[in-house]
């Protein structure tokens, strides 16, 4: 049995009396401890898919099973990092993490929660900033806090919706390496579903890439990433295999877009 099974998921939205299909018959499965990226151009429904996994939205048809149980709402088995607004602006970094811990661990005392929060803030390199409010932190730092919170909550599954999408290129690579390091060193490894539109990010991080296509959103390909772990970005990007794999993925990505719009102008 897979950790997460997505079975024939279809989502229809009705907006201003017009209905459109965000997802159509989406099926794939994710194994325990697997790092899966969902990739696709905007409008392919990848964020809708994640919101159903989070339990915020519910599907029109089909279902998602986690450990064989259907998802009916949010749950304390899943930690989430959004692109924006994951943190509560009225809580300090430390309080944000401790608040997350409190929701999954009701028995821990205040002191224990704060101690655990400090531990995880240290892991993401923010121990000096623990008493700052989100508005006093940069976007990259805010995402570090959000990651620290998701990890400190110690859920089986980590759902990440373009968590580095709004962060500059340099900090983005630093955060990718940090995430990978924290994930690889944890035992047992968490099951991660990571939504992105960045192919390099997907290859560097994942065990498997699920490529989606738009209008309606469906799964286009599932691709295993054939590189060993632990991965070193600088060494990896220099290998022939990496470039060949990347070019294949890019070709798939573009051929999908080109076929959609009839081979004319490509706008990404």
């Amino acid at each position, binding site marked *: 049995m897979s950790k997460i099974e997505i079975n024939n998921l279809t989502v229809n939205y009705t907006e201003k009396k017009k209905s459109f299909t965000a997802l159509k018959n989406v099926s794939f499965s994710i194994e325990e401890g697997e790092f899966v990226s969902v990739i696709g151009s905007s409008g392919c429904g990848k964020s809708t898919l994640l919101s159903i996994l989070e339990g915020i939205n519910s599907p029109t048809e089909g279902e998602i099973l986690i450990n064989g149980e259907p998802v009916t709402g949010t749950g304390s088995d899943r930690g*989430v990092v959004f692109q924006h607004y994951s943190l509560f602006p*009225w809580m300090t970094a430390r309080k944000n993490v401790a*608040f997350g811990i409190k929701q999954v661990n009701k028995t821990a005392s205040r002191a224990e929660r704060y101690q655990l929060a400090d531990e995880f803030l240290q892991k993401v390199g923010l121990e000096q900033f623990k008493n700052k409010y989100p508005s006093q932190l940069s976007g990259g730092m805010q995402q570090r806090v959000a990651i620290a919170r998701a990890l400190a909550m110690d859920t089986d599954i980590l759902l990440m919706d373009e968590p580095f999408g709004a962060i500059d290129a340099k900090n983005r690579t630093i955060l990718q390496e940090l995430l990978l390091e924290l994930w690889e060193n944890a035992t047992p490894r968490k099951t991660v579903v990571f939504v992105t539109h960045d192919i390099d990010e997907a290859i560097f991080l994942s065990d498997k890439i699920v490529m989606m296509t738009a209008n309606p959103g469906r799964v286009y390909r599932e691709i295993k990433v054939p590189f060993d772990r632990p991965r070193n970005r600088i060494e990896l990007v220099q290998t022939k295999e990496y470039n060949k794999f990347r070019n294949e993925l890019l070709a798939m990505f573009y051929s999908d877009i080109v076929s959609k719009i009839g081979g004319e102008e490509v706008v990404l």
Partner: protein
Amino acid sequence: MNIQTKTIAAPEIDIEKKSSKIRTEFFRRYFRVVHALFAVLILIQFLPDQLTTETYSSYAIWFAVGVEVFTLVLSALIKKPASLNLFVDIVAFIYGLLIAWTLATAKFNVLKAALFPPPGKVLWQFIGDYDKILTNIQSSIGIILQGYLLAIVVAIPLGLFLGWSARLGSAATYISKFLGAIPPIVYIPYGIALLPTFRSVSVFVIFLATFWPVLAGTMSGVMNVEKKTIDSAKVLNVGRFTMMFSVILPASLQQIFIGCNQGLTVSFVLLTSAEMIGAQSGLGYYIKNYSDFGDYTRTIVGLIVVGIVIVFISFIFNRIQKFLLRWKQ
């Protein structure tokens, strides 16, 4: 050679620059127009009085000396030039007012003496009536606090609840808009019929005056909380109570404060008006009572005290607001 002379000369210039900098800083701090105004204010006290009654100019002198000492101490303590300027400008305004007031009353008698007492006399009266004023302040503030806090304690949870259940909320918005549109002062006659004492009527009217704006502020705050904030709380799997008081409440706090602020302003207007109509105590009563007897010295004392009390309460209110919203930039 050249280099050597330079290295020797440099520190000397530096020291000179520093000392001249300290000197200009000293001048900027302590040599101000405000102190000249103080001197003028003191000097005019020694002009001969034109009034037949006592002018109590010694009270004005002592008051001015007190303010001046306070100003000098603060000049030494306040670090930021902008806040020092602000404070000094306020003091200068007070001195200017006192100079004009003294000249127009005690010294040249251009205003009607019965209606315009000299400043010294007002200060003398203020000190003499100290006990009475304090009791009246207590009475007024007691009523305000009771009605105001009661309204906040009821309106905020109710607003959270109504705003949160969105469907109810939209109807509740119109109902609260209608009821909130009725000026609370018109409830006074009905309140008098309903309630046994003047105090309970005042508390009731202040309660209503605060309740509607706070309720409306809380509801609009809740309805404007970003969906993303609610989603981040939902994915943390928070309970209903936590969602309400740890997420929705702080997220709508700014709008709640707008309602609270409005309620506070209206409360003062209402209470002082109500006290002038039917009370036996309070600041409004003090002013009304003495002006009825033609005691305009005490009327002016009352006006000044009302001003001071309101400024003081707004100051505390702003401090609380700033503290609770310290996470906003």
